[in-house]
């Protein structure tokens, strides 16, 4: 894989991690309110899949979507400002953490009703076919969402009509506190796609290179008109479900297992870069970002200095985003009514 791509992947993941950890800090400062679902641990999924997408593809996500938006190209400023509920936010402060939308970048929204993103993605794909365009719709959802009726109905329609959707299951093994074996009759989630005649594959969601490759392959099929594809990305969230969840339901041995999954050496090597901080790393356990940094250095794609430089960049970017958010004005009630009614334009109602 060419150097640029690798750099982009590493940069995106570092940005994601830095952004999310900062969001957590801002939440503690009460600059961010409501629910805040963070992505640390899962960065390879969004980075791999979305980097494999074309600008003309569509992305539909969940309430855990900040990183999807960032990687799709939404400026960190607009994502942070949305978390702060300000006018400068990507949804004008109306949507917040769970509802980021960016029409221009075909980022079709974060949705907070589990499973709901699936029929919406199918609808966009239906329009794509009617317009006969070589575009794909990428639909992200979690392991828990697969038990929702909407998931079933959406996949049946996608399979039945050969719609251009790439279904990406971010299997972090938990639906809040419920482990996958306790919520799914068939824990090998990718196997469930067979019920809809949708080709499916399970991949290591902690390995961004594998995700990028599998995502690219799947998207080619989808755009070529071969019908929907299904990717199960096995991953793990290092934090609780949301800021209000301590995550105490997860056995320590599980974290250990994920450590085995990842060469300690890389972690140490990374420690020398002082990123993530020893405490952070201890807290989060394995770190696939560390792995990629390590890999790139070993493969001669990057020198430590470069990696360090990227880290400084993203740190600055996030710093700037926070400042922008703080300076961004509060929206007015007029803006809210405007957002609700703008589609009426000149229409005379009564």
């Amino acid at each position, binding site marked *: 894989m060419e150097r640029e791509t690798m750099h982009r992947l590493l940069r995106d993941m570092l940005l994601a991690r830095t952004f999310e950890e900062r969001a957590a800090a801002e939440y503690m400062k009460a600059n961010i309110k409501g629910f805040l679902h963070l992505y640390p641990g899962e960065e390879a999924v969004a980075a791999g899949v979305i980097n494999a997408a074309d600008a003309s593809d569509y992305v539909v996500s969940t309430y855990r979507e900040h990183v999807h938006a960032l990687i799709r190209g939404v400026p960190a400023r607009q994502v942070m400002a949305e978390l702060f509920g300000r006018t400068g936010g990507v949804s004008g402060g109306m949507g917040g953490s769970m509802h980021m939308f960016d029409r221009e970048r075909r980022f079709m929204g974060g949705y907070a009703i589990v499973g709901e993103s699936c029929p919406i*993605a199918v609808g966009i794909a239906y329009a794509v076919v009617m317009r006969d365009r070589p575009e794909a719709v990428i639909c992200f959802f979690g392991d828990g969402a697969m038990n929702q009726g909407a998931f079933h109905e959406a996949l049946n329609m996608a399979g039945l009509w050969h719609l251009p959707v790439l279904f990406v299951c971010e299997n972090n093994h938990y639906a809040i506190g419920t482990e996958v074996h306790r919520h799914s009759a068939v824990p090998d989630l990718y196997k469930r796609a067979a019920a809809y005649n949708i080709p499916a594959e399970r991949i290591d969601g902690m390995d961004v290179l594998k995700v990028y490759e599998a995502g690219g392959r799947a998207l080619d099929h989808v755009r070529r008109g071969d019908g929907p594809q299904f990717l199960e990305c096995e991953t793990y969230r290092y934090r609780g479900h949301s800021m209000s969840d301590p995550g105490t339901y997860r056995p320590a041995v599980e974290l250990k297992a994920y450590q085995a999954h990842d060469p300690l050496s890389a972690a140490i090597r990374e420690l020398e870069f002082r990123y993530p901080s020893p405490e952070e790393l201890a807290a989060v356990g394995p770190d696939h970002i560390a792995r990629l940094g390590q890999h790139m250095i070993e493969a001669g794609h990057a020198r430590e200095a470069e990696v360090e430089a990227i880290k400084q960049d993203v740190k600055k970017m996030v710093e700037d985003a926070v400042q922008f958010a703080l300076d961004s004005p509060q929206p007015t009630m007029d803006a809210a009514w405007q957002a609700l009614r703008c589609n009426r334009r000149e229409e*005379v109602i*009564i």
Partner: protein
Amino acid sequence: MAEEMLYWQALNRAMDRAMEADISVFTLGEDVGLYGGTYRVTEGLYAKYGEWRVRDTPISEGGFTGLGVGAAMVGMRPVVEIMTINFALLAMDSIVNAAAKIPLMSGGQFPMALVVRVPGGIARQLAAQHSQRREQIFMNVPGLRIAVPSTPQDAYWQLGQAIASDDPIILLEHEILYFTKGMVDMVADAPPMHRAIIRRPGKDLTIVAYSRTALLAQEAAAELAKENVDAEVVDLRSLSPIDWNTCATSVNKTHRLLMVEEDCRFAGAGAEVLASLTERCFAALTAPPQRVAGLDIPTPYNGTLEAATIPQVPDIVAAARALCQPAKVKATAEAG
């Protein structure tokens, strides 16, 4: 240039006209295509526009309504047919949490030119699960608009307007009305989609109704005329928004309000009408506003009982009479 036709035919014409004019218009639902639609509204469209624009769906109301939402976000004009209101309960999330909220949540970035057509109301002995009037559950959802045509002409106009609008709109079609006849002018300009209309002018009381009950109210008014009670009949045509000015003007003139609704009385559509018009016309009212409404009970299958659970013309006449001559009625009541 007006033509006499059935209510379903008027809807069919409106669909055809919209699909002919704009390729972004398409319809989907159970048996809307090959079968031609349970109530024939999409008859002939499958042959004319093909399966992608007239899509037969699996039995997945929540899913295909959500499909409509997604398509609308990218500029399509989906007309989702939910076979009957009874199944719309399975699509509530797509309608309430998605269609009605995406415009605001996205800061106004996306259009939502979604139309959801839903036959409903009490037909003939379809029993509890198929005898629903759920207009009220959509009324409390800001962001949605609800049209309730009572005539072929309004059906033609309002479906056309709903498809042309970029807001999500629910079109409630009463199952009993599909085979009612009326003149439809296809060139005349339509009144605004949500404006109420005075079906019969009168001075003694205002009867507010909508959809099928608007027809019953007019029959009742004719009866009342024989007793020299001059009722004004307001057909709301829309349940969200409601044209308060037309209603208030009438009540301020007649000083009496009678609401007629087929849905269950408790917390039904009429509650909002009474509440708002009392707030607006309190000083003008000379008698407590009344409701003639459905009983608060699931609909029994038995035909006699079914009829007993919804307003009939004599019920409306009696209520109007009582409202206009409270004293007299009270007397008789005591006498009897």
